[in-house]
């Protein structure tokens, strides 16, 4: 067992009626009145997890993260319950309320180290994660952080502390030494005397104890709940229509808003003629906002119909003629002319190129992408006097609450956030992506009833914050024997995920620099963030380097990854499971890619062929993932399947293009998705290295695009250097000899 010292981070308090509440907290003064009252302890705390034990022996775990299908409510509760030695049948799972009591310090550390934080917070991160929490008001779900930070640091510690306190109570009551007691299924036992007490019977007394200095966490061999494929608690409500998403907020007096946005980002509304719209049945009012106009009616369809009759004029803008071609031309200029900023310099790349026997070069590009969550963006706000109620699907309950309060000019404590399931997040529902939140609040301020603002699918697609388009140019130098000497990479920013462009391969000389890639297109995190672009680039170009070296792409990777045993292991496991190197069906080829992201290492091997019209068919994806160990193996598998399909959609079809300053795509027909018929067989292998927990929500997404295009290269001799794959013609392809 490992000992951890977290005395000041654990607190407990008695519950009315005889239970105990035990939490993991960080002692920063909270300005939240309600938080202090609810905790009823001196001072105030950020509590990132807590659990409640009641006299009837039920345990309730409060989870501070949003459930968006990643199974986090179940996984985090498993972590607390296992350390507690609770009977899983007696465990309830509840969403923690959106008050800054729950703002999550460990998540913020995760964000700070891996995702980066907004630049204005740069200097604060090192000082105190909790200071950042206070400023950003975070209760975030993102960055694949929930299990490995909140779970590992807070949930397990709270569970272990509670268990120890219950043992101490029982030992005192029996007059025996604590170390002669054991716990199982929500009971403390004294085996020598055959006595036992339930946690519920001990809870009231436990509340009087000082929380332990350093609760002992279990070894993996002692897990009873973690490591098991336990059914998710959110699923039953998702098969009978009872799960409530943000868009499902409903009341008899509710009004509905449909919005028309300025089509070119950043332009303003000039004038509106809504005479005809106002005559339509159910229409209550037209609301003019800075960049948009909204129709509010007693039914969403009526609002949408009336909006068609609104004539709105938007101001001209410098961006009115900008196209994707212009943006990529600007990227190419920056890459050609700008020195850029250093990402990584290793060895002497310049000298290596000067003495090289051969050099290869390649330019890669990926387009903007929309999130396209199945639940279109929406937000319901009810402002009544100086307080408000808020319903929306969000990855950041506290941030949204604060934002609504500030837009509406209300005290933050006066806004009540009602938790909802998320119909997909993928980064779209993270902080700073405020467009629908701001609009919904401003519209609701005109009424004293709840107003639900819903984006049409078209607006959801055209008013997103996009996965950035990026151009990335590479050069590699080789000696006379074909050995790679140097790696040279210049790409367009901005960098949202530090390190995503770096490679694990042992190449002595490396020069990686970033040039400015800012445009007028709003951008945000998109599942796996910068890894989604850079893994396609680096794992494709390393494949080019392998072929140029005369090496088999698998062998080449293995040779250059000797310093990375976890990479080697996932590659081996995936290669063996995929039958790499064995005979394949005629006209089939395998492609390979590996990437570490968010603390997990993932290898994917993809089997591809072409159909009669020379279009790629992805038959099978074999994936090996080392996420340290699996808290819930079924959830890990589900996230791998999900991440692969999400990345495959982007690789095959995903493309948001800009024409006349605006997004050209409208809805699913021109922003196509992988569907059941195009879903490959997915074979998942979890490699338990026992290392620290890695993230799971994102790491399966990055490798898939390069794995597919690397297979297509072998199959056709064509190197896909621009996504999506659908834009490429493989009809005049010549297979490459297998090495």
């Amino acid at each position, binding site marked *: 067992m490992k000992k951890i010292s977290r005395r000041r981070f654990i607190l407990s308090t008695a519950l009315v009626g005889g239970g105990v509440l035990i939490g993991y907290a960080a002692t920063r003064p909270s300005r939240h009145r309600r938080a202090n009252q609810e905790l009823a302890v001196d001072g105030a705390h950020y509590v990132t997890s807590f659990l409640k034990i009641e006299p009837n022996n039920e345990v309730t775990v409060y989870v501070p993260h949003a459930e*968006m*299908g*990643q*199974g986090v409510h179940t996984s985090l509760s498993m972590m607390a319950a296992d350390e507690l030695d609770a009977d899983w049948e007696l465990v309830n799972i509840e969403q923690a309320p959106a008050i800054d009591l729950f703002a999550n310090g460990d998540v913020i550390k995760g964000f700070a180290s891996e995702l980066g934080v907004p630049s204005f917070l740069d200097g604060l991160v090192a000082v105190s994660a909790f200071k950042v929490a206070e400023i950003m008001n975070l209760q975030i779900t993102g960055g694949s952080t929930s299990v490995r930070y909140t779970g590992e640091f807070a949930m397990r510690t709270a569970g272990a502390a509670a268990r120890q306190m219950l043992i101490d109570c029982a030992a005192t009551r029996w007059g025996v030494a604590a170390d002669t007691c054991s716990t199982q299924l929500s009971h403390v036992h004294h085996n020598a005397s055959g006595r036992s007490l339930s946690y519920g019977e001990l809870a009231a007394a436990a509340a009087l104890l000082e929380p332990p200095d350093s609760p002992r966490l279990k070894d993996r061999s002692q897990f009873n709940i973690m490591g098991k494929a336990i*059914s*998710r608690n*959110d*699923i*039953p409500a*998702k*098969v*009978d*229509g*009872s*799960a*409530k*998403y943000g*868009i*499902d907020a*409903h009341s*008899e007096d*509710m009004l*509905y808003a449909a919005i028309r946005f300025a089509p070119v980002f950043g332009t303003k509304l000039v004038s509106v003629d809504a005479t005809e719209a106002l005559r339509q*049945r159910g229409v209550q009012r037209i609301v003019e906002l800075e960049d948009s106009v909204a129709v509010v009616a*007693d*039914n*969403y*369809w009526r609002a949408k119909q009336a909006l068609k009759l609104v004539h709105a004029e938007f101001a001209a803008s410098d961006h009115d003629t900008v196209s994707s071609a212009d943006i990529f031309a600007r990227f190419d200029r920056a890459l050609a002319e700008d020195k850029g900023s250093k990402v990584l310099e290793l060895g002497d790349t310049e000298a290596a190129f000067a003495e090289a026997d051969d050099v290869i070069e390649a330019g890669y590009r990926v387009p903007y992408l929309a999130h*396209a*969550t*199945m*639940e*279109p963006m929406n937000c319901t706000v009810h402002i009544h006097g100086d307080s408000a109620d808020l319903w929306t699907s969000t990855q950041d309950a506290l941030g949204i609450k604060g934002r609504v309060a500030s837009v509406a000019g209300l005290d933050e404590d006066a806004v009540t956030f009602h938790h909802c*399931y*998320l*119909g*997909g*997040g*993928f980064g779209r529902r993270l902080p700073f992506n405020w467009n629908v939140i701001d609009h919904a609040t401003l519209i609701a301020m005109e009424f004293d009833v709840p107003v639900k603002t*819903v984006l049409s*699918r078209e607006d959801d697609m055209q008013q997103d914050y996009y996965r950035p388009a990026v151009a990335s140019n590479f050069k590699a130098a080789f000696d006379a024997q074909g050995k790679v000497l140097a790696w040279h990479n210049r790409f367009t920013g901005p960098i949202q995920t530090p390190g995503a462009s770096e490679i694990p391969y042992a190449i002595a000389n490396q020069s990686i620099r970033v040039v400015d890639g800012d445009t007028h297109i709003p951008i945000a995190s998109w599942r796996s963030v910068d890894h989604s672009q850079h893994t396609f680039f680096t794992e494709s170009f390393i494949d080019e380097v392998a072929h140029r070296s005369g090496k088999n792409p698998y062998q080449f990777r293995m040779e250059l990854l000797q310093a990375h045993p976890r990479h080697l292991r996932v590659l081996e496991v995936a290669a063996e499971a995929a039958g790499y190197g064995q005979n394949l069906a005629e006209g089939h080829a395998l492609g390979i890619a590996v990437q570490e992201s968010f603390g997990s290492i993932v290898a994917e091997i993809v089997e591809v062929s072409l159909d009669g019209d020379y279009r790629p068919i992805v038959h099978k994806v074999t994936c090996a993932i080392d996420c340290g160990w699996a808290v819930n193996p*079924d959830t890990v598998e*589900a996230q791998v*399947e*999900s*991440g*692969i*399909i*999400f990345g495959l959609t982007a690789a095959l079809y995903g493309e948001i293009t800009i024409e006349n300053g605006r997004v050209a795509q409208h*809805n*699913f*027909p021109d922003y196509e*998705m*992988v*569907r*059941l*018929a195009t*879903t490959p*067989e*997915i074979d998942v292998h979890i490699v338990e290295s026992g290392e620290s927990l890695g993230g799971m929500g994102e790491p399966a997404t990055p490798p898939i695009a390069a794995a597919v295009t690397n297979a297509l290269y072998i199959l056709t001799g064509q190197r896909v250097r621009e996504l999506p794959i659908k834009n490429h013609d493989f009809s005049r392809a010549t297979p490459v000899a297998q090495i």
Partner: protein
Amino acid sequence: MVNFKVNGVEQHLDIEPDMPLLWALRDELGMTGTKFGCGIAACGACTVHVNGRAVRSCVTPVSEVEGQEITTIEGLASAAAEGNAPVPGLAAVQQAWIDHQVPQCGYCQSGMIMAVSSLLASNPNPSDAEIDRGITNICRCGSYPRVRKAIRALATA
């Protein structure tokens, strides 16, 4: 007035005949289990049964369902239990969805389940090709491998 039955209950609504069934269900009746995804019948999130047959309610005007029997996700289990629904035995689909841990975010699953139950009612043992053709709903979380597994389990059950 528009008249139709939803999950066995008569509804008489004073609404426009061209209002899509989706918005009559969601905004007029407050039945939010049926989801809005695209508005153009491209994603299937809004799938309900009209007389037991799967339709995409976002493009189905209420005038087309006058006097018809509509089943939504909320009514699926009871319709199956009573055995008097147009397509009996549907709750098995919901149970299979739990057994195979199909949903992730779950938003598309009401429509997915309605589409699958309709497919299985007309073709209890579909081939993979028939599943591919019959189930074209979009799931952004990529629950497809489990959707297929659950359908296969139901087909052989």
